[in-house]
């Protein structure tokens, strides 16, 4: 069964991509599964330089979800291209790099460096991380900021540019449109929801950073809605995510209009989920007599 999907000019063997921050640099999983069997591997957010991230406790569970404030700990783009990109290439992974910045220049610089190296399939612009003070979400919560970051990166790379949108706004679709106008090849969403869990005995936040980002099944119904809104608003492909734990969940996003999906939190629970997703999709396509994943994308019937 052909499970491949097209994101702009990028062909993925299947629509299932490991979400950024939930799959390390990919290499950590090479002993457990075949990285080439994933539609894509989106690595942890990278700045120009190394970053320590927030002190622990960095995660806490919530009903059907979790809050994280990792603070984008990472090795920086230089160490990434030297130490991690080669084994990823060797493993045959389709590598998405999640690019961070505290300034527009930094986004452009990191993207430029990545473009100089073989083995990067696409750039996902993280303009939506709720967990860092400078940069990130400040661009993702402003239409002009979104436009400017995308335009700047667009100028320095021919790689597909995929801004990742935040759900913490009134109308994500308007951000998808701003990204499209600025030359994005696709958009991905959702990043995490800004959230707070309190230890009532100490009256302090449960995680060290105070607030963090909510992910997991809890957010899925909101993420599906936003994916539908964005896919209805733009012509470029949409990559949907938020709480996918099964093929049924993934299909909701595809039917809502996503051309591919990312899986984050569920990978922690079931690192072999990728096999289930592939098998489940093939089974669904057989039952519904479909020969291409594109026949699923955006087929939601909203009429009463």
């Amino acid at each position, binding site marked *: 069964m052909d499970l491949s999907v097209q994101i702009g000019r990028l062909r993925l063997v299947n629509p299932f991509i490991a979400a950024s921050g939930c799959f*390390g640099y990919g290499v*950590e999983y*090479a002993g457990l599964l075949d990285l080439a069997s994933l539609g894509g591997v989106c690595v942890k957010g990278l700045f120009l330089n190394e970053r320590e*991230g927030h002190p622990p406790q960095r995660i806490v569970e919530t*009903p059907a979800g979790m809050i994280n404030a990792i603070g984008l700990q990472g090795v920086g783009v230089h160490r990434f291209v030297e130490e991690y990109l080669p084994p990823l290439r060797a493993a045959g992974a389709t590598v998405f790099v999640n690019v961070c910045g505290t300034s527009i220049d930094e986004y452009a610089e990191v993207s430029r460096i990545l473009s100089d190296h073989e083995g990067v399939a696409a750039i996902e612009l993280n303009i939506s991380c709720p967990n860092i003070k400078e940069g990130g979400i400040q661009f993702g919560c402003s239409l002009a900021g979104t436009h400017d970051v995308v335009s700047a990166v667009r100028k320095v790379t021919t790689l597909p540019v995929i801004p990742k949108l935040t759900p913490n706004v009134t109308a994500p679709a308007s951000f998808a449109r701003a990204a499209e106008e600025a030359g994005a090849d696709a958009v991905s969403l959702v990043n995490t929801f800004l959230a707070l869990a309190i230890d009532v005995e100490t009256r302090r936040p449960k995680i060290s950073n105070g607030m963090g980002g909510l992910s997991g099944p809890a957010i899925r119904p909101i993420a599906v809605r936003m994916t539908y809104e964005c896919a209805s608003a733009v012509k470029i492909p949409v990559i949907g995510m938020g709480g996918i734990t099964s093929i049924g969940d993934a299909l909701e996003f595809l039917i809502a209009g996503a051309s591919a999906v990312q899986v984050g939190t569920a*990978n922690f629970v079931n690192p072999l989920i990728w096999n289930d997703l592939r098998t489940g999709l093939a089974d669904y396509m057989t039952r519904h007599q479909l020969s291409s994943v594109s026949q699923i994308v955006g087929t939601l019937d909203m009429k009463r």
Partner: protein
Amino acid sequence: MATPDILTRMPVDAAARVIANTALSVDYNLVALEAPELAALVRPGQFVMIKPHEGHHPLLRRPFSVFELLRSADGRAHGISILSKRVGTSTALVAGLREGDVVACLGPLGRPFEPVEAPVEAWMAAGGVGLAPFMTLAEALVADGNPPTLFYGARRAADLHCADRFERLGIRVVYATEDGSRGARGFVTAPMAEAFAALPGGRQVRVYACGPTPMMRAVNDLTVARGHRCDVSLEQVMGCGLGGCYSCVVKALDEGGHGHYVRSCLAGPIFDGRTIDWTALGH
């Protein structure tokens, strides 16, 4: 460069059948799991990530040390047991497991203990459920002809479990309880300090510690002050156990004494106690 090291880990995700679940006390359970492929890979002090239930409540797996390797008559490991102390939702679910239930069990994970070779003495310092990673270490040391001493502390005698299993291996167990109901009154550091005092000059010791963070810190301080090395097994909150999430970090000191967050599921859970920034440890 951590990459090559990472690539060598090949854990197994086993659908492990519960062979037996024995309640040792109101909060301690010993759960025997059938998982031959996984068991075959285990090295001393490694852990597994377990999800004892279906559904999203709770969402994530939980780390448990491999306590025993269960062996068939021919000596082949066909399963593992875990020693679980009930503290919250998942450990309550573990306590409720019944024979025949199937749990998702991913492992073995983490950097293992390095068993020292004679003439270096091996001392294991366990606090409460911190006993769990020591059975696999003890077996390895015994097999190497270097049987360790176990310093085993708990609040009270009733909280000391499974020590007989160590004694059966021919291991000397030194007890300490906070209320003095068995062994020395107080923490394991007291009998350990005595043992250090009694140590023949020039004799080297490697201490292995697992238990509450303040206990491990005290054991490490004591050991390092006596000029020996202490390897500790840290318990951070873990989202994945595989290096995917960066939730489990501890601040490790580089040669220059500078702290960097490292993932304890990959770089640990076993650390040389001298390389840890103890003040930065969460709880």
